[in-house]
């Protein structure tokens, strides 16, 4: 067990190291001079540009820049953003919580909704309700997220705020703040759920369908169990494995947020920060977000691997 764990964690670390190096090189290949981008449309002299280049350290040879970057990372310092003149880690920390709140909530709700509808659909496959619910889910999955978000926002009129995470003049006490954030979260959350629940539904539905004719279900029925219980206690636990993989893969993507939804609803999240960094290009910020986002996916994959062993005795034995 410990050897297995060490293997997985070791593998993850190697991936992460690869990501760090790739992030550094990749963003230096894309066209664009950060100094020119920063000063676009402003009165600057050529001397100022040269000074700025020295101060940002982009005048050094690539190898030296890479060493600086690595040694900073070892100390837990991801550098200073060119645009914001603030530590990258601080900026990411600031935006992490709104994204985790929004995407986390909607992922959990989408998983619950998707699994529930998937189970129902498989159990009564081909029925009218199955056809409708699957069709509906697929249609929503196919919709462009930003478009659905804008439609929802238009259709609900004045019921919900048009964007942001809270009103500036909300009283500072916890209850008012929490209610205000919840109120602001309804539309972006609904949009995200509507678009993603279909994949949980489909995976759950098809893996449950595979179990439908298994002998152990006949046995369970022969014992005289009610249909409800056959499904809940026998079929579903066995069909859950592929879904767990999917859920964990998606939990890893939670931090990367949903750029389009964050944009449409002006949600102050991490996805948007990444996009802003890319348009700069704000190299330190870009590398920082890249490493954090990739790190989250890698970590969640390790968790999924480990959880598999807990959930399925067959994996443990092999």
């Amino acid at each position, binding site marked *: 067990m410990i050897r297995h764990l060490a293997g997985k964690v070791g593998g993850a670390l190697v991936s992460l190291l690869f990501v760090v190096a790739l992030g550094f090189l990749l963003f230096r290949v894309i066209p664009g001079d950060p100094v020119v981008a920063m000063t676009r449309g402003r*009165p600057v002299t050529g001397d100022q540009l040269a000074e700025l280049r020295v101060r940002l350290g982009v005048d050094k040879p690539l190898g030296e820049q890479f060493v600086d970057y690595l040694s900073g990372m070892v100390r837990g310092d991801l550098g200073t953003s060119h645009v914001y003149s603030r530590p990258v880690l601080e900026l990411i920390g600031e935006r992490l919580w709104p994204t985790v709140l929004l995407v986390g909530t909607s992922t959990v709700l989408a998983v619950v909704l998707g699994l529930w509808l998937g189970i129902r659909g498989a159990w009564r496959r081909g029925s009218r309700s199955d056809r409708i619910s699957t069709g509906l889910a697929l249609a929503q999955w196919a919709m462009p997220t930003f478009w659905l978000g804008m439609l929802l926002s238009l259709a609900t009129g004045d*019921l919900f705020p048009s964007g942001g995470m809270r009103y500036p003049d909300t009283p500072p006490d916890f209850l008012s703040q929490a209610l205000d954030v919840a109120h602001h979260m309804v539309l972006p959350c609904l949009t995200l759920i509507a678009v993603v629940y279909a994949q949980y539904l489909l995976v759950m539905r098809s893996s449950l369908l595979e179990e439908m004719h298994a002998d152990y279900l006949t046995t369970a029925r022969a014992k005289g169990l009610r249909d*409800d219980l056959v499904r809940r206690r026998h079929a579903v636990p066995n069909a859950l494995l592929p879904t767990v993989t999917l859920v964990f893969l998606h939990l890893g993507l939670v931090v990367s947020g949903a750029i389009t939804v964050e944009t449409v609803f002006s949600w102050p999240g991490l996805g948007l920060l990444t996009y802003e960094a890319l348009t700069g290009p704000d190299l330190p910020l870009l590398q920082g977000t890249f490493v954090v986002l990739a790190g989250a996916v890698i970590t969640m994959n390790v968790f999924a691997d480990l959880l598999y062993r807990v959930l399925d005795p067959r994996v443990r034995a092999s």
Partner: protein
Amino acid sequence: MGIRRLGAVAAAMALVVLLSPTPAHAQQTVTLRVAIIQQVDSLNPFLSITQAGTEVGKLMYDYLTAYDVTDQHPVEGLADKWESSPDRLTWTFHVPEGKKWTDGQPITAKDAAFTYNLMMRDEVAGTANGSFTADFESVTATDDRTLVIRTKQPQATMLALDVPIVPEHVWSKVTDIGEYRNDEGPVVGSGPFVLTEYRANEFIRLKANKDYWRGAPGYDELTFVYYKTADAAVQALGKGEVDLVNRMGPAQFDSLKDKPGVTRNQAQGRRFNEIVINSGAATRAGEPIGDGHPALRDVVVRRAIAKSLDLDEIIAKVNGGYAQRGTGPIPPVFADYHLTPEPAYEYDPAAANADLDQAGYARGADGIRVSPQGRRMELRLIGHASRAYDEQTGEFVKRSLADLGIVVDVQIVSDNQLDEAGTGGMFDLQFSGWGTNPDPDFILSLHTCGQRPNADGKGGTTDTFFCDAEYDALYAQQRAEFDPAKRRELVEKMQQRFYDQVPAVVLGYDNALEAYRSDKFASFPVQPDPGGVIMAQNGVWGYYGAVPVASAGQASGSKTGLVVGVVGGALVVLVGGAWLMGRRRGLRAEERE
């Protein structure tokens, strides 16, 4: 069964939340809520570069002098009187008694001297506004009231020093300017508003400075709320969540036309759009760089291009009519310096064709012209992917030049790719555009020989690679000319030269499109008056002089509706859940395997 009931309960809860009334967020205080779309990069006035950031900076800190709301001439800022020596190298400013920092300390000439000296001494403090002090020899406060600035050479921008003056008693304690965020309210300043709360990427709150020397603003609070898209900001204005929006597109502006309670402001803008023509990119030393089409070095071709473009049609179709026809780099909002060219290129494709025929650009068998040197007239036009304007205008240009026998390949690329192509001279035609300041010096300097890059393609800020002895001579003259009428004449000559040589075709000046809730705010000062903007002024008159309607403070409503709704919903869930649990416990016995 159970799951179905749970669904019903959830639906009931959703319904309760949906039906709860929208929270009207009003209090007894009158607040002006402004939507901003651009990021505030920093609230530290020495570092802030973005327009949104400097706008907040101007609300917090006065400059040494200000720009008049009507016609933008220099008026009293922190200093009320000033004079310069006959050689224009020494400037003396008088800082009057009675002006106070928001913490009650008096504002003196020493604060101004401290600020400028900090920028000259500390490179980081010069990040945002270093260009203003680059030519300063020394800055001293001879006493609390008198500030003396000596410059290395005459500087035309001495009454346009856009540098926020900070309080010495606060900033002298800051050890690392680069690390200081200056966002913990209340921030000590001198402007009409005091920063009280900052939530990165959410909002910025300022309260009125009741002791402001010009007089207190006419309302209590000013809030900037972030929206990521102009669409969202316009929607928020429609719903009454914000009171003032700018940077709208023509379609968004039109959508607010008949909205009750909303008034629109179509203002003269400070931006121009242009197509740069690669008339021979070279380094500062004159070494040619890039791969521009050689025929573009011929002024006849450049003029023919200018004559073949129907600027009025582009404005009507692409700008939705919300722009003014372009001539020189200085827009008509700065009426003193704006060029009325003589003669002007009228839209005349026939004349343009005739000119090219005469200059030896004969049409080939396929109708495409060939230069006298034997190169086919095929040009690339590079535009920004981030701007719809470039793509739409590009199609017009393509069609117009096709009539001229010139093939145009419109390439829409990322801003960074465009920058790279631009600085390397790797283009034939390229979209560009700038915002201009009341003082024309900077925008004119972009076309001087000295602004071309050095050998490694860096160190220059040229816009067009234009290098013209006559233009440069005029530039040097206007820089040293302090008589406004004479300088105006020189600036006009420079633009005329630019216009004749056509290193770029200025297409038009975008209108600034703004709108506000006129059911809450009766009026805003515009700059210049009439026809000017409310936001993004040279100064903050628009925010400072906003007049709320009489009833704005008594707006009713509260968040009670929402609170009742959500608490009610939570109760339904709790009760429903308890009931379900109860039922399940009851069923347990018969269900047992």
